[in-house]
């Protein structure tokens, strides 16, 4: 009787006939299965956590208090958040500087303005697209950031994993995210520059992840002047713009991986925002106004503002780049702006 191995060897040297094809297909299928299993086992655990992040931020129900610090300023806000009857509901209450609050139900936002305090909440209401419009869009973060699961921690009483997102080039900052273990909710984050300096810090100091949040937590509690705002972001499933709406000017360069994310509302000119899925910067091109702005870079925590002047067709423009990017990136982006003709919207501006 011929040993099985011999038969296999002979089959390998024989030109493939119709009978050989099924066997070959089986072998290929096995190899593919083994390769897929190996790949799955080697899949970066940090990437798996990041995949949960977008969903967790919107779909997790929670309430608590968070602090946010950048550039020497610290703010704290109380928040209640839930996904209820197919819509996101949120209530945010300022904890310092005034008694204002924001209540959001789906795309409807009601803001109660504080009678005193520095923050003008009527300006704070986001007028652009909200986060969930983008959660289905998978950004290839791994191309621009090296993600690693670097440890575990405890934040606001919850066990978390720590994900380090190290920028792969010098054009963006590195990030560190603390995600709650059972839900993937972002409970703490740092934005920093190479070398370890933390520029921006966000953290829940008090948190309760629970589906048991009464309706009353999402009702307006404080007295004061109310304003209502309907968010005008893209509808669910609506495609994002494939190219920025730049009218009369163009961007000669931006770091790879940044794509048009939204169009900020600029009442005096034109603006385009770019994001790499983690960081974002906005470019404003406006005819220079009577107020002379200083040229150069300013920084507030991780946020950079770079301004330069440009003259085209006898009109002086102010180019402003704002974003959570290093100053050099903002400068390079601003320096690459070319104005071809006066933007239509600028024609009527002083």
């Amino acid at each position, binding site marked *: 009787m011929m040993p099985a191995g011999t038969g296999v060897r002979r089959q390998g040297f024989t030109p493939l006939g119709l009978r050989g094809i099924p066997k070959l297909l089986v072998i290929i299928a096995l190899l593919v299965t083994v390769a897929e299993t190996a790949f799955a086992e080697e899949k970066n655990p940090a990437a798996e956590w990041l995949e949960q992040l977008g969903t967790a931020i*919107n779909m997790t129900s929670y309430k608590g208090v*968070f602090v*946010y610090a950048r550039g020497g*300023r610290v*703010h704290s*806000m109380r928040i209640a958040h839930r996904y209820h009857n197919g819509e996101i509901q949120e209530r*945010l209450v300022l904890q310092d*500087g005034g008694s204002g609050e924001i209540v959001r139900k789906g795309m409807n936002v009601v803001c109660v303005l504080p009678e005193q305090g*520095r923050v003008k909440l009527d300006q*704070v209401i*986001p007028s*652009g697209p909200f*986060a969930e419009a*983008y959660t289905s869009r998978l*950004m290839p973060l791994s*191309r*621009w950031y090296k993600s690693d699961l670097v*440890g575990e921690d405890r934040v606001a009483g919850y066990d978390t994993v720590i994900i*380090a997102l*190290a*920028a*792969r*080039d*010098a054009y963006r900052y590195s990030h*560190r*995210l603390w995600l709650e273990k059972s839900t993937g909710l*972002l409970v703490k*984050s*740092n934005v*920093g520059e*190479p070398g*370890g300096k*933390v520029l921006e*810090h*966000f953290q829940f100091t008090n948190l309760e992840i629970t589906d048991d949040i009464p309706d009353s937590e999402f009702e307006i509690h404080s007295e004061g002047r109310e304003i209502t705002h309907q968010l005008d972001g893209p509808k669910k499933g609506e495609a994002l713009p494939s190219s920025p709406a730049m009218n009369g000017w163009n961007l000669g360069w931006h770091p*790879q991986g940044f794509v048009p994310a*939204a169009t900020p*509302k600029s009442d005096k000119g034109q603006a385009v925002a770019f*994001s*790499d*899925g*983690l*960081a*974002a910067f*906005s470019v*404003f091109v406006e005819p220079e106004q009577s*107020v002379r702005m*200083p*040229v*150069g*870079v*300013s920084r*507030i925590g991780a*946020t950079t503002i*770079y301004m330069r002047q440009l003259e085209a067709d006898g009109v002086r423009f102010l180019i402003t780049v*704002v*974003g959570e990017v290093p*100053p050099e990136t903002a400068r390079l982006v601003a*320096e*690459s702006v070319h104005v071809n003709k006066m933007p239509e919207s600028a024609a009527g501006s002083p």
Partner: protein
Amino acid sequence: MAVGALFIGFGAGAGWEYIGVVPASSVAVSEPAGVPETDTTHEVALQGLDKEQWGYMNRYLLEHAQHNSVGAGQGSVGYARLVSANDSGH
């Protein structure tokens, strides 16, 4: 100062590692043509801005924050940035 201590504390506990990645590393990011690498970025002291200039600066910060609703900037962080931008310079 409390804020200073806060930042030192955060930095100390964060465990940041040095990311000494140059542009020509694993990701090919090209330098824009015509921009010398030796250019230095002139830093503007925010304390030196007058009220009108601050108004302009605030508007840019706010408009950027209002639309910066992608990635990890979404959710509570997005709101926090908005409030912070609104409060800048006062």
